[in-house]
């Protein structure tokens, strides 16, 4: 299930939904606004329609490739503060290896394949975040 919107992400709720399917293993990754590097606010922009479609393609690919019981991505957009959850990725499978691999796949590929843009304000200055080269490398390792 894919959700993109401005509402605060409740990781416990997401987790409960993943647990409902009878899985033996659930892997999750949560990205937060770091509280330790001076960012005062983070603003997330997305491409309505295209973003949801990109996330759905990733979830579909993960479900098929790892035979998942469930996979969920919830990504927040709009203004956020340090400590806020930006993204929740969760996978449920019969065993741990597919759950863990699919979870890493989803967050790695989300970073390069889904149209989101981050703007951060620190020390009164606002700038658009530059992509990290390591993100391309992380996404590329999932190519088949």
């Amino acid at each position, binding site marked *: 299930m894919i959700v993109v919107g401005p509402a605060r992400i409740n990781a416990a709720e997401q987790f409960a939904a993943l647990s409902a399917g009878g899985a033996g293993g659930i892997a999750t990754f949560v*990205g937060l606004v770091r509280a330790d590097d001076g960012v005062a606010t983070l603003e*997330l*922009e*997305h*491409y309505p*329609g*295209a973003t949801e*479609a*990109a996330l759905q393609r990733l979830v579909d690919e993960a479900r098929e490739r790892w035979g998942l019981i469930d996979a969920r991505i919830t*990504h927040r957009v709009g203004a956020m503060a340090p400590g806020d959850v*930006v*993204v929740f990725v969760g996978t449920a499978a019969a065993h741990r290896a597919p759950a863990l691999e699919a979870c890493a796949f989803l*967050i790695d590929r*989300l*970073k*390069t*394949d*889904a*149209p*989101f*843009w*981050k*703007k951060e304000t620190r020390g009164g200055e606002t700038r*658009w*975040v*530059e*992509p990290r080269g390591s993100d391309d490398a992380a996404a590329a390792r999932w190519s088949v």
Partner: protein
Amino acid sequence: MLYFAWVRERIGRGSEVVDPPGEVVTVADLIGWLADGSAVHSAAFADRTRLRAALDQVFVPLEAVLGSAREVAIFPPVTGG
């Protein structure tokens, strides 16, 4: 046309409707044609290596042929997650 992030900010709007001539075949042609017609677009598109594009909501390289696409989006590399 749809613009996102700093491309949107530099152009000063999130969307516009354009009607390019027949010799505009690829996304890169379209970017060049828009830059030729406006100093604002020219400034926003100055560094092509920092631009990415989507045709009808699917990521494509700048060399992609526009074809019958109705929605063209120009934006910086993505930084979600």
